[in-house]
């Protein structure tokens, strides 16, 4: 098809509002895809997705998207990270050296003015020493002046202190608070609550606990036993919101999955649709043109494949063999090539075969292959383009459906996989609606885009008599 024809078609397309909407949606999705590929290169995305926690340790778990705070009364906290290696974070570190041992003091001052408690509290250490490890004490100072000793510990070369799952600390804090309040706190109050709560009766129920807003400080004091020793620390006060899309159970930024889901979904859908349609078209053309034995054989093969139950077989293969997404694509194509499209196209080709210009081509010496590819297929091609575009949606959904069933690629971040993770981790039970809604929305949006475009193309390429 020449450029002029494409431009003409495009102009016709713009006359349909639905097509314009569809094109906008697709531009958006393609825009996402391009952005994904540029901003997060493939290997990095796979790595971040596969390694999960190890890479995203600074992310909160199951955090909602940050923009949700716009709609909420009670503002959910964002993550606060203070790192002695990054002066701008506000961490202060001072080492008082002396001949043999040095004193080290690290301060993490921060303001906490949110309406809800942090989800987690972790401390990370890196220490430099040859034989004797530093020894530290960790203190917590609340805005009301109360100081709490959290822990005393030896710091190894890389060490971490998971404050929020420190049971001893939790118990100690519960008892202390129960005393202050004058009543026993009847539930297992976690440290991230007790360290941040207003110390009054509201703390007796977790739902009514209030955040004590104001300036907090964590003070780490310690001794470095060697002249060359050094220690760095990072405090992460995990929020409950993160980024544009939130995080999943492995702390992975969902944006990676959502962004990368776009090019994967679109390329899977388009590749499957195009390769299958074109293959079916060629098979149908050969079948119709040569007729007789070739026709009979190809049609019998088609009928055989048409009878096979597509999805169950696909599921069986996926159960027995762990399929990567590209192998899945090949399997889908292989199972679909001799599909019902062959019958439809063959009917079209049988008609085209009788057209006078085909006979004329034979008269001036055109060979069989030339007639098939340069005379018959170009005639039929515009007719199949709408169904080609429409079937992209169904392949996008197919891949998602398989992933949701747990049969898809276990490694690559796709929208279906995100939904699968959400489902297996009980997202809806736990109220993590965004985890399900975000990928679903994108799936539906993508399908809608292709569907709108496909229907408009159908109106252009296959005008019905009733429209004048």
């Amino acid at each position, binding site marked *: *098809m*020449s450029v002029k024809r494409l431009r003409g078609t495009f102009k016709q397309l713009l006359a349909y509002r639905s097509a314009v909407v569809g094109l906008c949606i697709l531009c958006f999705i393609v825009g996402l895809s391009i952005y994904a590929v540029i901003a997060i290169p493939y290997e990095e995305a796979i790595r971040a997705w596969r390694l999960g926690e190890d890479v995203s340790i600074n992310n909160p778990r199951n955090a909602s998207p940050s923009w949700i705070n716009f709609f909420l009364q009670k503002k959910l906290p964002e993550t606060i990270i203070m790192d002695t290696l990054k002066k701008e974070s506000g961490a202060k570190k001072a080492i008082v050296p002396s001949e043999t041992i040095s004193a080290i003091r690290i301060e993490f001052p921060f303001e906490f003015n949110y309406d809800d408690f942090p989800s987690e509290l972790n401390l990370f250490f890196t220490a430099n020493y040859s034989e004797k490890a530093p020894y530290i004490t960790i203190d917590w100072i609340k805005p009301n002046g109360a100081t709490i000793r959290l822990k005393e510990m030896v710091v190894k070369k890389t060490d971490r202190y998971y404050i929020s799952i420190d049971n001893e600390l939790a118990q100690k804090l519960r008892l202390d608070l129960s005393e202050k309040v004058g009543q026993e706190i009847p539930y297992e109050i976690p440290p991230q609550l007790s360290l941040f709560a207003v110390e009054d009766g509201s703390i007796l129920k977790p739902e009514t606990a209030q955040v004590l807003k104001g300036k907090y400080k964590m003070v780490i004091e310690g001794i470095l036993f060697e002249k060359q020793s050094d220690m760095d620390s990072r405090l992460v006060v995990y929020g409950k919101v993160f980024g544009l899309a939130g995080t999943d159970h492995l702390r992975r930024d969902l944006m990676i999955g959502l962004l990368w889901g776009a090019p994967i979904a679109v390329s899977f859908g388009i590749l499957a649709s195009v390769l299958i349609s074109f293959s079916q078209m060629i098979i149908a053309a050969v079948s119709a043109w040569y007729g007789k034995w070739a026709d*009979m054989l190809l049609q019998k093969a088609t009928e055989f494949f048409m009878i096979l139950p597509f999805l169950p077989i696909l599921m069986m293969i996926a159960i027995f063999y762990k399929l990567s997404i590209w192998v899945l694509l090949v399997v889908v194509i292989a199972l679909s090539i001799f599909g019902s499209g062959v019958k439809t196209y063959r009917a079209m080709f049988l008609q085209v075969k009788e*057209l*006078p*210009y085909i*006979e*004329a*081509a*034979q*008269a*001036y*010496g*055109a*060979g069989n292959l*030339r007639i098939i590819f*340069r*005379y018959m297929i*170009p*005639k039929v091609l515009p007719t199949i383009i709408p169904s080609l575009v429409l079937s992209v949606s169904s392949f996008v959904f197919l891949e998602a459906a398989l992933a949701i069933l747990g049969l898809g690629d276990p490694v690559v971040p796709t929208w279906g996989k995100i939904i699968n993770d959400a489902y297996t981790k009980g997202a809806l039970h736990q109220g993590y609606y965004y985890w399900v809604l975000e990928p679903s929305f994108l799936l539906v949006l993508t399908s809608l885009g292709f569907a709108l475009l496909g229907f408009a193309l159908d109106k252009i390429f296959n005008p019905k008599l009733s429209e004048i």
Partner: protein
Amino acid sequence: MSEQILLSVRELCKYFELRKGLFAKAGYVKAVDGVSFDLKKGDAVSLVGESGSGKTTLGKTILRLYEPTKGTIIFDGRDITNLGSRQLLEYRRETGLVQQDPYGALPPFMTIRRVLEEPLVIHKIPKAERIKRIYSVLEEVRLTPVEDFIGKYPHMLSGGQQQRLVIARAMILNPKLIVADEPVSMLDASVRIEILTLLKELQKKHGLSVIYITHDLSTTRYFSEWIYIMYAGKIVEKAPTKVLLKNPLHQYSQALLNIIPDPDAENRFKIKDVPPGEPPSLVNPPEGCRFHPRCTYFKDGVCNKKDPEEIEAEKDHFVRCWLYG
């Protein structure tokens, strides 16, 4: 004398199989059943007949678009009857086809330039030569200015222009023989003459032989040197055009001539003499002369027993009828 003969057809037959299911045969449609003639270089012959007479099948069999069932076709001294598709390529270069439906004969998705370029590409004409030929052939059929037309698509042309393009395509390989199958019957009356005149001009200019297939006898005067009348798969009369139009010998030819109206106000008062009945089935043609069920000169025992042979009733005037043999 024989160097002047371009096409020589002897006892040519084309039967189509009627099949019941994939394997059972149910008989043959004898579309062309024993046709013989010679066509001289530069001559045009009108092959006249109604639908079912086999004229189109004959034209297409001569072009080897169908495989002959029996008989021989000798073109320019070569026997092309049984050539395989590879060897036919040369033959295809020397022949051209002009079909009835001008729009259908053109691939709607090809520009005029591409339409004309296809035969050249297939026959491996070098690129530089191609554009020259395209221009020259478009000028010959008067689709000018050429630059205006070259980028257009077939649907942008009128019926007459489309047919001129089809003719251009048939001419572009410099053929020796053109088979024109009802080339004007789908065109408006005022355009028909334009196309026929063009064909005639091209024929004279290039010394082409033309087989002009038509059901309309009235155009033959302006076009061909010879008329062959076909009925039920056989040629029943052959004569030079003027001779046949003045003195048709076969009753079928007489009927054809008789019933063709000229615009005349008196026509509405006259009932024409039309042979009763219809053309016979080609699967089971009547025994003997195929026209006998409708012929007023029918002689029992003769006409329904033996198929008449071709007899030269007068010089160059051949007829298949027991009246003359």
